[in-house]
């Protein structure tokens, strides 16, 4: 039964037929979507299994530590496939995002052997790696005996992949030759514009092309849309999370850096240059004029909530926040649009700083080979396609998923401009911070300084000089400066 269809799927899996061709063929054969899906899963399992001993660790048990997130949801929905494929039993603990990293830090710092792999962001690995809590995955990636031939490590977007690799030297370039692969990218977020088209039309505003235009557009939206709607949503709480999205993306677009790395490897603060001060001044006045009134307590979920509920006209933040707010029971669902954004008029392309949800292997795992089996499956192409086309696994980190017609069409249909935004800004998308263990100290104080500037407690120039001085002192105290 279904022999012909199976052949077609096999051809696809071998790369002889593209996805569209396969689905067309299956449709012509009169297969329902459900049957096709079942067949597809079965065949892909077989295809994966064909040239690689997926059963090598059959009967073993793994435990994961996961953040409550659509990525984790997508993985859990597909987990049975992995269990069938490998015979490895997988259990997991899911914790709310609010407390997730506290749990990770507590588990790892105590050397707990409970979890074999866990979700993390790249910034966190700048602590976890040097602390000796996570494993350099290069050894596994480069071992053909342990990694299935279809894994296609080259398929990962280079900026994203490299952002998860660091040699452990404070200030060391991400993705350098001696870098250790601390985690494998899973899904990621670029920071660009998501906006409410109807409000733009109402206020007669076109999509801004640089920071000055952004300020003007935001001010006009605040003035003309009415109903208390404000022009621009950017994060503002006293946290590292305020610095890394739109703010750093725009900042990096002007060629500005957080820290300088000296020839002797010593770090020093770089945020009190004249250009940086000019950028800060514009950013601060934009928030004062057209930002949310509760900006200094405004976190990622409010950026999203306000856009989704029609309280804000535009956000310069994670693209996936705009993505999620365009669906579900949000009032503005279906009314949002997207655009890439380069803050610097002289810049040729956007340089979004990125957040990468990744998977890392605990150094305290009792069976690292079996854990790697899970990691390569979860970050493999099959699962990425499943997540991107059937679940909300956006943005995928593999180039071939972005080339997938089904995925592109799905996005184009409901998320106007999203694919184009990604394509335009992906080449410049990477982590623009300096990798070093004091990341959270630097960014938290930076956010607190921004808050003081927005509240007019300190002038921008003076605030940045104070910040630089304080950061230099802390770097020296830690033996880094």
């Amino acid at each position, binding site marked *: 039964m279904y022999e012909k269809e199976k052949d077609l799927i096999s051809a696809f899996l071998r790369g002889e037929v593209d996805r569209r061709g396969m689905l067309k063929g299956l449709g012509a054969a009169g297969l329902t979507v459900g049957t096709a899906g079942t067949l597809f899963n079965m065949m892909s399992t077989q295809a994966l299994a064909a040239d690689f001993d997926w059963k090598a660790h059959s009967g073993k048990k793994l435990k994961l530590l996961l953040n409550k997130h*659509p990525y984790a949801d997508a993985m859990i929905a597909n987990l049975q496939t992995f269990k069938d494929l490998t015979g490895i039993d997988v259990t997991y603990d899911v914790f*709310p995002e609010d407390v997730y990293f506290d749990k990770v830090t507590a588990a790892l710092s105590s050397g707990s052997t409970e979890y074999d792999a866990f979700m993390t962001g790249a910034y966190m690995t700048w602590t976890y790696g040097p602390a000796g809590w996570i494993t350099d995955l290069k050894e596994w990636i480069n071992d053909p005996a342990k990694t299935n031939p279809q894994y296609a490590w080259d398929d990962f977007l280079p900026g994203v992949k490299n952002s998860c690799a660091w040699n452990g030297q404070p200030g060391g370039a991400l993705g350098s030759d001696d870098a250790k692969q601390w985690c494998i990218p899973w899904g990621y977020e670029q920071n660009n514009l998501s906006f409410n088209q109807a409000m733009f039309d109402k206020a007669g505003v076109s999509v801004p092309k640089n920071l000055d235009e952004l300020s003007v557009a935001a001010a006009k939206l605040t003035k003309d849309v009415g109903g208390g709607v404000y022009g621009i949503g950017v994060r503002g709480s006293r946290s590292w999370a305020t610095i890394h999205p739109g703010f750093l993306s725009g900042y990096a677009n002007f060629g500005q850096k957080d820290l300088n790395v000296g020839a002797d490897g010593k770090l020093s603060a770089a945020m009190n240059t004249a250009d940086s001060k000019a950028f800060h001044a514009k950013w601060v006045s934009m928030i004062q004029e057209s930002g949310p009134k509760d900006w200094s307590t405004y976190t990622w979920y409010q950026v999203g909530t306000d856009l989704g509920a029609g309280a804000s006209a535009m956000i310069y933040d994670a693209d996936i926040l705009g993505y999620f707010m365009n669906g579900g029971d949000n009032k503005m669902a279906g009314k949002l649009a997207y655009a890439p954004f380069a803050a610097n008029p002289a810049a040729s392309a956007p340089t979004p700083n990125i957040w990468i949800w990744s998977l890392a292997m605990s150094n305290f795992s009792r069976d690292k080979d079996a854990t790697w089996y899970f990691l390569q499956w979860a970050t493999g192409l099959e699962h990425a396609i499943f997540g991107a086309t059937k679940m909300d696994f956006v943005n995928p980190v593999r180039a071939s998923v972005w080339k997938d017609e089904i995925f592109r069409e799905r996005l184009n249909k409901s998320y106007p401009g999203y694919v184009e935004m990604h394509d335009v800004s992906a080449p410049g998308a990477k982590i623009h911070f300096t990798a070093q263990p004091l990341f959270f100290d630097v960014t938290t104080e930076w956010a607190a300084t921004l808050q003081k500037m927005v509240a007019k407690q300190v002038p921008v120039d003076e605030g940045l000089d104070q910040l630089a001085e304080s950061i230099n002192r802390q770097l020296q105290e830690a033996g880094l400066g």
Partner: protein
Amino acid sequence: MDTMSPLERTLRGLALTLVVVFFMFPIFWIFLMSFQTNETILAIPPSIVFSPTLSNYAALITGKLQTAAGTLDIAFMSNLGNSIFLSVASVAVSLVLGVPAAYAFARHKFRGSEDIAFTLLSFRFAPPLLVLLPLTQYFQWLGLSNTYLGLIWVYQLICLPLILWIVRGYFEDISADVEYAYRIAGHSWFATFRKIALPLAGPGIAAAGLLAFIFAWNNFVFALVLASADKQPVTVGALAFVTSSGIQYGQIAAAIVLSVTPTLALALYAQRYLVEGLSLGAVKG
């Protein structure tokens, strides 16, 4: 105090109304939110008019949340179960340990009694964060991490000092004469404690127990750090609705309402001990 002028009566009524409004309004608002979806909760300006839905409660109780991306599992009811078990067990252990100790401190001046009492109190002011890191490591070695036993033990830090010091005050307020008379009649120390002292201090014990229960109920950092997902209390469970794909205010509100219910039921049940039966004037020396 029995004679109250009409003016005073009015002023008192007014003050009480203000108090009730201040403390009850947020509760009322949360209660309303629990019957709404984000669409009406996030209305501009906020509105009191909405068509109520039970979907938040349905999602919490059945453990199935319908989203655009499919059905997701929610562990809220098991979180609730954990909270009930942890709080009840911790308070029970605290009562068994704390009440006799409180009695000892109240009735006997023994060498070092004040020092021991103060040491016990001092556990209350060790910031949890301070002991947590070493504690996770010691728990690993002792095999106590991720066990209810370990958690109940750590919860004693919250409950025991509170019970001990509040109950001690009540024991001290009871005249020793009644106990003395009972002992004279040839009864044992234990019988005296059980038949005379405990019932007289009952209201105080109930009040202290309820407060300890509330504080244990509201704590979540211990369970978060020391145990895995299947042993987490409601507080952690409710935070799960702050997700990357949006914050579900309606479900958080419903979670709050559900999580308050057992405590409120307990308080209403114990009402006569808490506020009615605390009259110790009759037995006070």
